[in-house]
């Protein structure tokens, strides 16, 4: 079973995504605290859903770090953001894909599936 890491500072959103991913037979690990990502990475997720704007933490910087580290750069990162310029931001930080809030669950599942099957 593929493992997905979700990082978003809004509990309701994390829970909603968790429900939908678990329903589609994915294992989910999550956090609302961006600083915990480096810890959870040790559990070797197969994909990361990362919010850009988490209180006090810049998701973009986290992504850049992940993509620089040879141990984690192979893990696909999908940026989620309420910002209009999500596509540009995703490109700038080296993310593999982006999804704008509010998102459609089908779109989310499609993108997750696409990037997991790539590996």
């Amino acid at each position: 079973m593929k493992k997905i890491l979700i990082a978003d500072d809004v509990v309701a959103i994390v829970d909603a995504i968790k429900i939908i991913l678990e329903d589609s037979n994915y294992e989910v690990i999550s956090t609302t605290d961006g600083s915990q990502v480096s810890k959870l990475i040790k559990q070797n997720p197969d994909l990361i859903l990362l919010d850009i704007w988490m209180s006090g933490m810049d998701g973009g910087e986290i992504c850049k770090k992940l993509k620089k580290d040879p141990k984690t750069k192979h893990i696909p990162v999908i940026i989620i953001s309420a910002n209009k310029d999500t596509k540009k931001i995703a490109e700038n930080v080296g993310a593999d894909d982006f999804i704008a809030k509010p998102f459609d669950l089908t779109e989310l599942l499609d993108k997750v599936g696409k990037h997991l099957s790539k590996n």
Partner: protein
Amino acid sequence: MVKKTIDRESRGRYYERAFKNAPMAIAILNGPRHVYVFSNKENDRLLGSTTEVGKTVEELLPLKNKKGIIKILNHVYKTGTAFYKEARVDSVFKGDQTERYIIFTYQPLMNEKNKVDGILCLAYDITKEVLGRKRLKESEERYRTFIEQSTEGIWRFELKKPIPIKLSVEEQLKMAFKYAYLAECNDAMAKMYGFQSAKNIVGLKLVEIMIPTDKSNVQTLTHFLNSGYRIINAESHEVDKNGNDVYFLNNFVGIIEDGHVVRAWGTQKDITEQKKLEKEKDEFIGIATHELKTPVTSVKAYTQILYRKFISDGDQKTAEVLYKMDTQINKLSELINDLLDVTKIQEGKLKLKESYFDFNELVREVVDEMQPTTEIHKIIVNLGKTKSVFGDRDRIGQVITNLISNAIKYTPKAGKITIKSIIKSGNMILSVKDSGVGISKENKNRIFERLFRGFEKEKETYPGLGLGLYISKEIIERHGGRIWVDSKPGKGSKFYFSLLLNK
């Protein structure tokens, strides 16, 4: 040529004539009592009376400060040293009372025994030169006052190495940062960087004040180099002496000599405060976007979760309810985006991030995004030659998206949507044609208004706040372009917008 021997007497008469008519006052005094032996026309004019040969200075001089002059003459006679003085004389002599300046020279005359036996007095009118000098000084002072009193920074940058204008923009830019230095400026300019006066800042290199990698700086200078070496209202991002960010609005012009840029003159206005406020406002709008969209994201996600659950449980009816909810949430999301755009427009805060981009490439990108949103419409693309357009790529993309989205919305039955681009009269023109319901004559003038929405005869309004075209119009007009429509009810609509090429 016959050599003419002029005898002493003739020579004497020749000299006398020359002295008599010379354009300066000449008088020759003899002896310790300073007896007049000669006085020319000019001297008489200066003194305002005819000088009698044989009379002394004491007897003839109609001056208030006669004593002073005699004292000087005595000194010259006694010591044999010449005397020069520039004096203002209007109040001193008889005759006209206008402002006059004279240089007086008293030159001792030596006899054969090399002893002083007389004095040569010369007076030359230099009123024109003095007044000219005065006027120049006053004019300089006036300009200096303007420059010194100005609250704007006024400056002159010189180039250690003049920049050849035939070089590429990038090379010119590199040279500018390397060789430009501040040669002259006013105190206001120095204060903008945290210095007390101009002398503290003169000599600094351009690269020391202006961040060479900052986007707005590169853009400003590139524009300057591309627009005939002139630019107005261009922003720059610089650092003051404490390393703080300072922002300026600049106007400047480059001076070209012999195919090289040799210097630049300019003014700058400190807009650091405004920039701070803008940043705060932008941050607020950013936060507002985030805060509004967050609950909407949750609600949408849960709505969709419930929808799926009811579908998998076989409860089609309830699932449909949730489907409708989801549709409404989408509209809510669109409205939030539109409202935020309108807020920015209203406050004049709709900022354009301008750059050069390929127009047709943008059109194709938008079409690629929009085609999947409709199953019953076919978007046909018919693009002419492409050009590099200077503008805000995202915002122009927003306009194209809006026009195509409207075309889809107002063509309820299946149909074709045709996108065309052409270059005409220095403009890039895009048209979006649909085969939808069309627009009536009365409404044609109103569709670009804020909050105006189209409606069918069956009193069914088309969804939306009616902000899309208002925002599109604002964006296009901010770029200096035009947006308009051709339409007939029942026959579909063709929307156009134009953008200036070569801005």
